[in-house]
């Protein structure tokens, strides 16, 4: 249990998707104009990461990894399908996003309308595929650990996008040098936020 909590907290603050690995930057920069839309997108990302990472964990464990097929019989024990990782993961993500979209539409139309266009966009958000690939690279031991990593990364991304959106709403009232307006200053602010987040690095959890 302790391990699971520590992975959760670590993936929110120390291994933050945006500030430490720059994942999901495209939608992070494009959708962060207002706090309201970024909250919607952030929640959708938490949702999808929380589902795809454990699903891809199971696939990696029982289908793709070295020796993963041994449950089929001893002849399959040394089959390694690792090279299929990318294509399988992206297919899982695309279909999961579609599935999540249909489920939300059915059971919570209000949430569906507020998430709107963001759900399909998430399929090509690199934070999602990145989450699955990091999960594979770091070799988490159980599905609970993988889930807590997925949810934690999602929450970290949520914090990042809501933070930058709040700053961008305020920065409209300040006198930014003309060539930096818009995109330029957003990059620099993100860099400064990243430096602030680096202070978590020294903390042992």
């Amino acid at each position, binding site marked *: 249990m302790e391990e699971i909590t520590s992975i959760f907290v670590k993936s929110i603050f120390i291994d933050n998707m945006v*500030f*430490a*690995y*720059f*994942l*999901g*930057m*495209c939608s992070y*920069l*494009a959708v962060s104009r207002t706090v309201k839309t970024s909250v919607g997108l952030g929640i959708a990302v938490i949702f999808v990461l929380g589902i795809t990472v454990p699903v891809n964990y199971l696939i990696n464990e029982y289908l793709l990894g070295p020796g993963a097929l041994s449950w089929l019989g001893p002849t399959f024990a040394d089959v390694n399908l690792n*090279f*299929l*990782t*990318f*294509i399988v*993961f*992206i*297919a899982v993500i*695309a279909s999961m996003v579609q599935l999540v979209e249909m489920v939300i539409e059915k059971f919570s139309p209000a949430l569906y309308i507020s998430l709107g266009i963001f759900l399909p966009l998430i*399929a*090509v*958000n*690199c*934070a*999602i*595929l*990145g989450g699955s*690939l*990091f999960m594979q*690279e770091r070799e988490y031991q159980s599905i609970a650990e993988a889930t807590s990593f997925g949810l934690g990364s999602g929450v970290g991304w949520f914090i990042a996008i809501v933070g930058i959106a709040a700053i961008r709403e305020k*920065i*409209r009232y300040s006198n*930014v*040098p*003309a*060539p*930096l*307006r*818009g*995109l*330029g*200053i957003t*990059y*620099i602010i*993100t*860099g*400064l*936020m*990243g*430096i602030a987040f*680096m202070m978590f690095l020294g903390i042992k959890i």
Partner: protein
Amino acid sequence: MSAEIKETEPLFSPKNRKLLSIPLNRDNPITMQVLGVCSALAVTAKLEPSVVMALSVVFVLGVGNVVISLLRKTIPPRIRIIVQLTVIATLVILVDQFLLAFAYDVSRQLSVFVGLIITNCIIMGRFEAFGMANKPWPSFLDGIGNALGYGWILIAVGFFRELLGSGTLWGYPVLEKIGLYSTGYENNGMMILPPMALIVVGIIIWVQRSRERDLIEEN
């Protein structure tokens, strides 16, 4: 025969040259279209991985755009996203296996970011915006142009971060050789840290938009 030749465009007509040159500056994927930022920043702490990454994207985008352009009349619109993802994923697997075989160290450094070329929005973006609607040759030029526009930013960021952060270029100790350290110069360790990539890109945008003032955005 000769009439036919007159009708076809020369390979490097002004229009085609524009496809290649506009994304390098005025319509740069990273500084103007805000595409493909995700993987651009994380690999730029050193020059070598930046160059490898840039070349991989040139390959995937150039070849992929041609493939999509050849298939553009047969892809059903409803499932085009998954078809495009399949094309990209196949090409990326090729790049990944190639790097594992011939450049293992760089492949380790890039870690998950080779895989993340798949979700690099610049590739999907160009497939959607150009490959789906144009002939193979212009698509090829458009793909190469955009990938080079992406690549030169990557290489520029990698150059400054490695030079100022570690005092080396491609692993070669440049600053030590010209004797800068004996005058009391110190490396700026900040440049190695991930957030500095963002700030360097911000500065590149600043320079670019100071030179081309019509690109300046509203706040």
